[in-house]
């Protein structure tokens, strides 16, 4: 098929809608390994968009490229937990074996080796993506085999199937994960009881958003229902990008029916006929099975027109792929991305419940929230309130990784203490727990009696364990680099502040910083927190500010004992002069001891 035909076929399948731009680009990327200027021109003509707009969209998303990548495009997950499992050594091993420089395609165009933000396989890491497909449990043997497969030009489809196997790895089940209801029970309950009664149940259940922000789900649905418009939309946020979170991976693999049913329930209540699952690009491997699930639901009358035979209950779900942008977990960025644009967070108000997708009232909820809502419709509010705490009813799925013997998925009633969790996952000699990901909280041992709940330590689900052998500054550095990579670049404090912060953390890490630099980090962090446009910028300094307060010793041991240190290495700065003069004697160097 020529590129013209390919582009015509993918755009025709979505009626040439501009809003699908990201989806077209995603398809082109995986067909041709990059998006050529010719492809951009063809798309621009077809969609009546400017080429610079398309370049701008490609430039925004990490998984889209307008210059060639290797035929095998390898991305090592670069989360701190991958590092702790030796991912950087494996990356070096692969680069050395293949003779490639990281991030640069090999001269023959065969392969690119690079890194990417957390791929959500933290419990089975180190992990990588090869042409978008997940490989877990990397070790030296697997890397050797992978290098051989690449050198022998073996198609990825023919690589050993066990490489692509990802376990659900559920370690503890509570009311959600022990669900044994039948498909359609929630929707039957909706039809029997009526929309108002079910919405009241959801409200009185106290269900709050599971993404981390904790907005009351029933209230969100009611606001959206009350907003008048010709269309309403339901969006499931499966852009699980917070480093250390992987619970949606399990829900979408093993409980997708219930998640889709929760979306359909919401649609029935707010009056939506169209829904989207925004699936992070890293979970490409889940997509085919999810499409199949949707088809089964249509065939069994649980999706499509006249759901369960009820006239006028029409709803369908489409899957949209993300393309490597953490910011798109923010609901208004996600909506921009769904509309085929750069994922820049919108100005709020107005909020998505009144002005969301296509400027219409839209409910955006987390995967886990939709599943919980479906079960509440079946079992009722009291059932849900019977577990958890007064302000945080129900359970929370935690994604546990790092220094523990049993990483994986743990479902706990809200209110569980951190020390109980650490006991269950068999974590020993724990120095700190990072809860809620890079944007979350660093909890020292003295606070392990604290609880996971909205009123105490609130979390979207990431729970990373660090034992006493770890240098926590490695974590801080990893997160500081993560935020530079993931800042959308829209507002000044996040765009520039994250870079300044990263440079200062690196300066401390390399042993070149003084107290002045720590004070600078404090004030830059406070500025980002106070003045950024969205939640990414306001939470990006958290790991630095939290550890400066609770773990000052991790900084102190790296400090030079002076109040001020220059931002650069004076001797290294003379290298150009040495090169020009051809000198390298002692006199051409600044003494390190002076």
């Amino acid at each position, binding site marked *: 098929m020529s590129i013209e035909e390919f582009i015509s076929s993918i755009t025709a399948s979505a009626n040439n809608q501009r809003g699908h731009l990201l989806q077209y680009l995603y398809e082109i990327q995986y067909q041709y390994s990059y998006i050529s200027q010719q492809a951009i021109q063809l798309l621009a003509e077809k969609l009546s968009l400017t080429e610079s707009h398309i370049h701008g969209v490609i430039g925004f998303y990490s998984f889209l490229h307008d210059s060639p990548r290797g035929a095998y495009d390898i991305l090592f997950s670069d989360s701190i937990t991958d590092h702790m499992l030796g991912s950087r050594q494996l990356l070096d091993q692969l680069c050395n074996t293949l003779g490639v420089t990281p991030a640069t395609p090999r001269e023959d165009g065969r392969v690119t080796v690079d890194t990417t933000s957390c791929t959500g396989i933290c419990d089975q890491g180190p992990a990588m993506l090869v042409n978008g497909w997940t490989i877990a449990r990397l070790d030296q043997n697997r890397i050797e085999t992978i290098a051989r497969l690449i050198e022998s030009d073996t198609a990825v489809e023919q690589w050993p199937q066990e490489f692509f196997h990802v376990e659900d790895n559920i370690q503890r089940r509570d009311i959600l994960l022990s669900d044994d209801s039948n498909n359609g029970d929630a929707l039957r309950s909706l039809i029997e009881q009526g929309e108002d009664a079910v919405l009241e149940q959801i409200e009185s259940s106290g269900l709050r958003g599971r993404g981390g922000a904790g907005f009351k789900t029933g209230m969100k649905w009611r606001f959206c229902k009350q907003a008048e418009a010709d269309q309403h939309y339901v969006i499931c946020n499966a852009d699980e990008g917070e480093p250390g979170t992987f619970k949606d991976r399990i829900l979408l693999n093993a409980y997708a029916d219930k998640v889709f049913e929760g979306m359909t329930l919401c649609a029935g209540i707010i009056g939506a006929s169209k829904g989207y699952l925004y699936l992070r690009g890293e979970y490409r491997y889940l997509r085919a099975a999810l499409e199949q699930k949707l088809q089964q639901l249509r065939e069994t009358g649980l999706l499509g027109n006249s759901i369960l035979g009820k006239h006028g209950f029409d709803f369908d779900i489409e899957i949209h792929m993300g393309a490597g942008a953490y910011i798109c977990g923010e609901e208004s960025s996600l909506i921009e991305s769904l509309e085929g644009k750069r994922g820049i967070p919108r100005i709020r108000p107005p909020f998505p419940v009144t002005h969301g997708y296509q400027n219409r009232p839209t409910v955006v909820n987390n995967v886990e929230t939709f599943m919980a809502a479906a079960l509440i419709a079946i079992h009722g509010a009291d059932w849900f309130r019977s577990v958890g705490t007064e302000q945080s009813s129900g359970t929370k799925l935690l994604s546990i990784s790092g220094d523990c013997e049993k990483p994986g998925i743990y479902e706990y009633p809200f209110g569980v203490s951190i020390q109980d969790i650490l006991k269950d996952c068999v974590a020993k000699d724990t120095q700190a727990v990072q809860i809620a990901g890079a944007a979350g909280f660093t909890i020292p041992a003295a606070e392990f009696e604290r609880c996971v709940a909205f009123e105490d330590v609130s979390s979207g689900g990431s729970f990373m364990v660090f034992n006493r052998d770890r240098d926590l500054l490695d974590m801080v550095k990893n997160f500081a680099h993560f935020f530079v990579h993931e800042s*959308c670049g829209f507002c*000044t404090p996040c765009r520039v502040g994250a870079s300044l912060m990263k440079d200062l953390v690196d300066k401390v890490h390399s042993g070149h910083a003084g107290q002045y630099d720590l004070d600078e980090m404090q004030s830059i962090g406070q500025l980002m927190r106070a003045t950024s446009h969205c939640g990414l910028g306001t939470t990006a300094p958290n790991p630095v500010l939290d550890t400066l307060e609770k773990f000052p010793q991790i900084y102190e041991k790296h400090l030079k004992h002076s109040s001020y240190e220059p931002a650069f290495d004076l001797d290294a700065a003379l290298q150009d002069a040495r090169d020009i003069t051809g000198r390298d004697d002692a006199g051409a160097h600044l003494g390190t001891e002076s």
Partner: protein
Amino acid sequence: MSGSNTFKLDGKDIPFEDGDTIMDAALRAGEYIPHLCHNPEFPPHGSCRVCIVNANGRQISACTEPAMENIEVDNSSDEIMDQRRALLQMLFVEGNHVCPGCEKSGACQLQAVAYYVNMLSPHFTHFFPQRSVDASHADIAIDYDRCILCELCVRASRDVDHKNVFAIDGRGINSQLVINSPSGKLGDSSFAATDKAAHVCPVGAILPKHTAYDSPIGERLYDKKPISIVGDVAAHEQDEDR
């Protein structure tokens, strides 16, 4: 619609109308809130964050926040001015802003706001990015060193000129202004000196050629009075060029 609602800005009563932001109402009342990406002719953008104020204890950008009855807005405390200064310093170190060698000096909003918030040094470590000058267009030059990503040219070209000459590419610290033309050069685009987009740049990134020192240093827009009195550079652009 009622004109009788008011809020307090540094203790002064500011009347506002339905749909006003804090910035809209303040500007109408003749009160200055420092800003760079905001231009009253365009919908609020909220990216530079320089118009940060404290409203009832919350830090928000005045250009995007709806005005509300009886809120108390702090527009001048030391804390607010310190934050604005730090934001300005970030913009200065992010690009290459060499005021003494810039032909926009004296009529540059970035420089004028920096003076207003008492910025005396860039404070942070310079990034010294490698950026180029695009002199391919007959009448207008672009010096990317000075772009602060306010997107006013993007918005003006898209919404007023209907040409879409400008766009933003990249992400995060690698975000950059780009030109929609086959070569990426302004000269190959449909841009014209009469475009609205040629008259909205608050800094010296989009500059008319051949007029650099028509107005001598010392006689320029902000040379005699501060920006709080003179107002935005874009509001004076049209008369300056004629």
